[in-house]
């Protein structure tokens, strides 16, 4: 019938601005998919949270309100508590190669199964890095983790981030990103956890950010998802196109993002933000001090013991 020839509609929702590299990457992916599908799929990208903020997009995928999204792992912890595993002490301050081994290996597969079940969504392929998350401070110079004691620190959400702040003697605060500039310039909190790129895009130096402690406390990952209902509608060759296009391009997307983070650091430094970089020994010592609490933490934030075990196996074999 005529209806069968109509292209499938693929709506994708992102809550970052068009210039953000996640948007650039996903736009590129959608363009390539549309070309490869030869008119069988019509893609539409909705940006800047026009359709949904990431916090709500999980529900939208479940209810079939949107076909694709790439939410940050920290935004889906309310539904998939295992997605908070990036906060585990074992992953603190680790090099990107190890993180990739974890997310592209067995722990990643385990997490994908959880996501598939709870979000009723298909994981299209390897995650897209946003990059390392660091500490940033407005007035108090922060050169080591000890300096964080007593400071009010904003995070992006998830119980794991709050735990780390408390562990270091800081007071955790979760403030939505839209309220960060005002709250920061008003001193509602003294510092925040975020990435170079996020800070530079919001020009947070105008709101008073002066110091950064680049401890790479965790990597923020965007997870490319398609609603299961939509995925099941695709013919096997269309599914293969999706998977292949994403897999072929993810190395480039990841390295673009890493380059953007480096460039953002330069921009921040140009605007007077002073960076401190802990040595490998300091980072290892900090990780060691957090590790004894890992099992209790995993229990509190509901990360399954199996996942912890899988991650530990990867970490152990690497360092």
């Amino acid at each position, binding site marked *: 019938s005529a209806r069968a020839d109509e292209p499938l509609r693929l709506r994708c929702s992102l809550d970052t*601005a068009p210039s953000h590299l996640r948007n650039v990457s996903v736009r590129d992916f959608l363009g390539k998919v549309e070309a490869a599908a030869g008119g069988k799929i019509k893609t539409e990208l909705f940006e800047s*949270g026009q359709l949904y903020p990431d916090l709500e997009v999980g529900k939208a995928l479940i209810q079939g309100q949107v076909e694709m999204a790439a939410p940050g792992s920290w935004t889906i912890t309310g539904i998939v508590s295992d997605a908070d595993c990036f906060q585990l002490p074992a992953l603190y301050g680790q090099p990107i190669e190890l993180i990739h081994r974890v997310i592209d290996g067995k722990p990643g597969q385990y997490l994908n199964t959880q996501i598939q079940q709870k979000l009723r969504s298909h994981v299209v392929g390897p995650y897209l890095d946003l990059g390392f998350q660091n500490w940033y401070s407005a007035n108090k110079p922060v050169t080591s983790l000890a300096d964080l004691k007593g400071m009010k620190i904003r995070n992006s959400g998830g119980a794991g981030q709050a735990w780390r702040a408390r562990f270091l003697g800081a007071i955790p605060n979760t403030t939505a990103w*839209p309220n960060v500039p005002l709250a920061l310039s008003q001193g509602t909190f003294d510092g925040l956890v975020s990435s170079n790129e996020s800070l530079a895009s919001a020009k947070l130096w105008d*709101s008073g950010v002066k110091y950064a402690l680049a401890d790479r406390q965790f990597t923020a990952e965007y997870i490319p998802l398609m609603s299961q209902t939509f995925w099941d509608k695709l013919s096997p060759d269309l599914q293969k196109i999706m998977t292949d296009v994403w897999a072929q391009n993810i190395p480039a997307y990841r390295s673009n993002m890493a380059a953007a983070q480096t460039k953002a650091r330069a921009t921040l430094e140009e605007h007077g933000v002073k960076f401190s970089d802990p040595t490998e020994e300091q980072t290892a010592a900090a990780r060691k001090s957090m590790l004894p609490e890992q099992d209790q933490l995993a229990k509190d934030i509901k990360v399954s013991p199996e996942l912890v075990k899988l991650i530990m196996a990867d970490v152990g074999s690497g360092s």
Partner: protein
Amino acid sequence: MLTLLFLLLFFGLLAAGMPIFLVLGMCAGILYIATGQPLIGAAQMVINKLNSTTLMALPLFVMAAAFMRSGGVAKALVDVATAWLGGIRGSLGLVTVVACTLFAAICGSSVATALAMGTILVPAMIERGYPRSFALGVVGASGTIGIVVPPSLALILYGIVAEQSVPRLFLAGVLPGLLQAAAFALWVLYYARKHNFPVEPVLPLAQRLRVTGHAIPALAVPLVVTVGIYGGVVTVTEAAALSAAVALLVSLIFYRGFHWTQTLRVITDGIRSAATIMLIVATALAFGHWMTESGIPNQLVNFVIGHHFATWQFLLIINGLLLVLGCFLEVTATLLLVLPILAPALVPLGVDPVHFSIIFTHNMEIGLVHPPVGLNLFVLSTISSASIGEVIRGILPFLVLLLIVLAIITYVPILTLWLPNAVFG
């Protein structure tokens, strides 16, 4: 086809006198069905949109406003302004402009301003022989200043979507806000003279001082909020909670407009006023979501961008577009609808995004008072039991003034850009 269905539905239900939240909710629901969207999404949208800390500033400020008007705080503030402006024809109208500007600057919500100031000043003006439609007009129009003068919920959202520094945007709004207040003040004075409004007696100095002394505890309310927000102690939402608490204490201790046993009643009153507005905002956002998805606004904006206009033409067209959207949609909905599409086009077209933020918010102010969907119109009609038509008649001259101010803001960028550039370099 869909557009036609929407227009028929929208105006049909409005004409039947259906509550606004129902009109918007039904339009959203039927359009969800027409486009094959599961309806559960519309319901989820309504409840999710309400789950916002930023939005909570509204009911909390409304609560503060309820304490202030029931407790006698706002009356003391108005009395003191009246005492010192006596002898000028139309002074009470002037008091309204000044009081609304101050209150709006503090609370960042135009609707809460219209609500709080309207309940005190509209009856006061009518009592002194001002025409009711004029009284409603001056309150409704002066209230709109809330989203341009910092702090402003709308500018915070703009900063996020367009990736601009929020403190910079806040400073940009100061001078345009003052210009608007000045324009209103001059118009009120002119109108009062022309229609021979009553003159308030000039009070003897001793009495003026006595009234001022009486108002000192009342002044604690704006003081706490201003110091809290600009002094870097609290967020806007916390300032709202704080102002409600201070207004409550001052009412109970100094003015005793109500007995402490009635506190819960006054809070319920506040929540009830807030509820009428929150339901409209939530359904408007669900409706705005459908609009975004339908792609209608995208097509419109892309059309404008695709025609390679000169900067001034571009600004003229965008202003027209925003005014039309403002007829139907609520502030946040318009912002989320248009800005993500428009923002990337600004710099290539030679428009400073900071400058544009004020053009944008000023347009949204106008949207608050122009029919058919203007939240301030509804608020004023609710508190005065005047018909929407009467409110519109009163607000018309101010609407013209707002359009003139819009033209100045649009074509004299220095007005917005001078202050932030002077401070941040």
